[in-house]
């Protein structure tokens, strides 16, 4: 909460608030996080999964009654 801060100028901040509300986000924070997540993924791409990672991901779903 107090860890990382980013400064925005007032004009942009106002627009962020406006967009967050219009788009149905619960807060400006949520809007900013979502936009940045999408943009960082676009630029950096997603991590390639190793077969071991894939196994791990599948294992996490084990025991979900609806699929077993």
């Amino acid at each position: 909460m107090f860890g990382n801060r980013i400064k925005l100028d007032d004009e942009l901040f106002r627009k962020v608030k406006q967009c967050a509300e219009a788009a149905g986000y619960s807060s400006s924070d949520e809007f900013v996080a979502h936009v940045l997540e999408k943009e960082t993924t676009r630029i950096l791409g997603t991590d390639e999964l190793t077969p071991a990672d894939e196994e791990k991901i599948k294992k996490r779903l084990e025991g979900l009654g609806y699929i077993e």
Partner: protein
Amino acid sequence: MIAAGSALAIALLSPLGAEAYAGPGAGFAFLSSFLLLLIVFFSSLFSLLSWPLRLLYRLFRRRKVYTRAKVKRLVVLGLDGMDPELATKYMNEGKLPHLARLRDQGTFLPLQTTNPPISPVAWSTFQTGVNPGQHNIYDFLAPSRSTYLPYLSSAQISGAKRNLRIGKLVIPLGKPQTKLLRKSKPFWNYLGEAGIFSSILRVPITFPPEKFSGVLLAGMCVPDLRGSQGTFSFYTTRPEESGKKQGGMRVPMRREGDWLISHLVGPDNDSARNGAGELRTPFKLQPVPGRDEALLDLAGQKIVLRKGIYSDWIQVRFNAGLGMKLYGICRFLLTAVSPHLELYVTPVNIDPAKPALPISHPLTYSIYLAKLLGPYATLGLAEDTWALNEGILDDESFLRQCYLIHDERERMFFDALDKTRRGVCVCVFDTTDRVQHMFWRYLEPEHPANNGKDTVRLAGTIEELYRKMDDLVGRTLEKLDDNTILLVISDHGFKSFQRGVNLNSWLHQNGYLALQEGATESGEWLKGVDWERTRAFALGLNGLYINQKNRERSGTVSAGQEMEALKKELQEKLGGLRDPERDRVAITEVFDRRAIYSGPYVENAPDLIVGYNPGYRTAWDSVTGKITRTVFEDNTKAWSGDHCIDARLVPGVLFCNRKVQAERPSLVDMAPTILDLFGVKKPPHMHGKIWGLSEATPARNKTR
């Protein structure tokens, strides 16, 4: 402490002399209680003295929040999956007196659910007051656009932030990182900001817990200690039948004299590179000759296991190296002794007294509950439906497990009720959902799952379940005063699941999904699909995905016109799809996500949502992305009832001890309504309606 002891001794023993001796044994026993009394005394004093200060602070901060509240306390009893039709039937038969009284003196209405009507989706809407397009939960699982592999939609668990690497060893520093993927904000956060306290127990999709002013124990989708959604273990001396695939984890036992030696399986051993195996804790088992018993020796704890009787929760410790320990709890059940010994062990739950991952807010809340009430199930889907499906547990054992968990939950709930004199208390009970899933076949003599199974002995199970819930409602009402609103709700209703529809097989047969050259079937999770020639695929319970260019890794369908045309085509072909064998409509309607969702996360939703007719559901193989040669098949698993159908056909229930004025009340209305009851303004992003509630309780709550 020793100094205090000595001082105490001198005080007690002077003048010295044999006659005045009081042994140190006395000090020994009294010392800790004496210190405790001191602590209590000072903490009482402190809280009394600081009370006016804190009161002032709170008054200043929240400016008389309760004066704007229309109610002192609100209790939400969530009975997952309680069905309005069954409830009506049993009420009319006079079997549910307390719910009937709520209906007669207050409210009983169907409660509109989410599309799809699945617990993670519905309870997310309940807590945030928004549609799935805003909270981002559409199913238990979601496919990765880049790998087509599924991931758990609600929480992401990754390794510790930093690792210490020494040669081949990788030692994680700190606990794994968890991230909640549900978006938007639960109503209890808004209440907390306004200074209103909430106790939130086991509401689905609350793991990992978020900070707010109140206490919360996470529910559905909390993993077990292995990180899965609940993997049981099965031990037997019976030789393995070749070619028979079995779920859960079958662990071998080795004979050594009178003892059978084996181990419990814990989380992956992250300290070894290349994922070298998992952590283990050994145990020994010694069958008692001539009796249906065995002696369990687990790290020095000796426990007698009796056939058919669950052990208490037993604490298990896994050593993760470098003095790091992970704690879990599990129950043992001896299911057979001769000719072969068979032992079932529940998934190793995260020990609430020493949580390996945060399962509550604050962290101490789960510890508090464990110390007050003893150990309890922490796994999200705690009732082991998988073991029953696999035939490792029988109906009775499964049922006993459900009610053991239910009783734990009741004790927690009544403690939370006792501790929440003002504010909101919410508790979700899963028993209703799990038992209906597994015992629905008893209601329908023609159910394909009945084949070869008992249909008589436990025929009354669901009725008994409803009676028990009614009794719980009765006991809750006794604890409430006139200034408390009680809402008894369910997130969806329940219907039969007789036939499975393999959407992937249908897509394959109709040319929308291609398999690699020469293949007629695929592996799990769409293994063997030729993505370059595939236009659509299904994954999860109701979702259909278009293989879109620049979105999916090997997308083939262009966004825009081609996409729209394909969606329309699929909607038309699948909507009204008939099951030729039964000559019945299997799919009522297929929904375009843009027609039913709005909000920033709609792009993550399945492109189409399939609404089934009662009696139908996505086939077992289809959920896990397996293409077979059949589209329609009988469901023969014990899991014989379901609700993943057309949302309009499975509303939940809404009971209230006051009159609710609302047209077609819906789950999405609950958050704004609760905020309104406590005088908190509805945030603009919530689209639900605020219900009108009659002022006073029409009649006293107490029955005599």
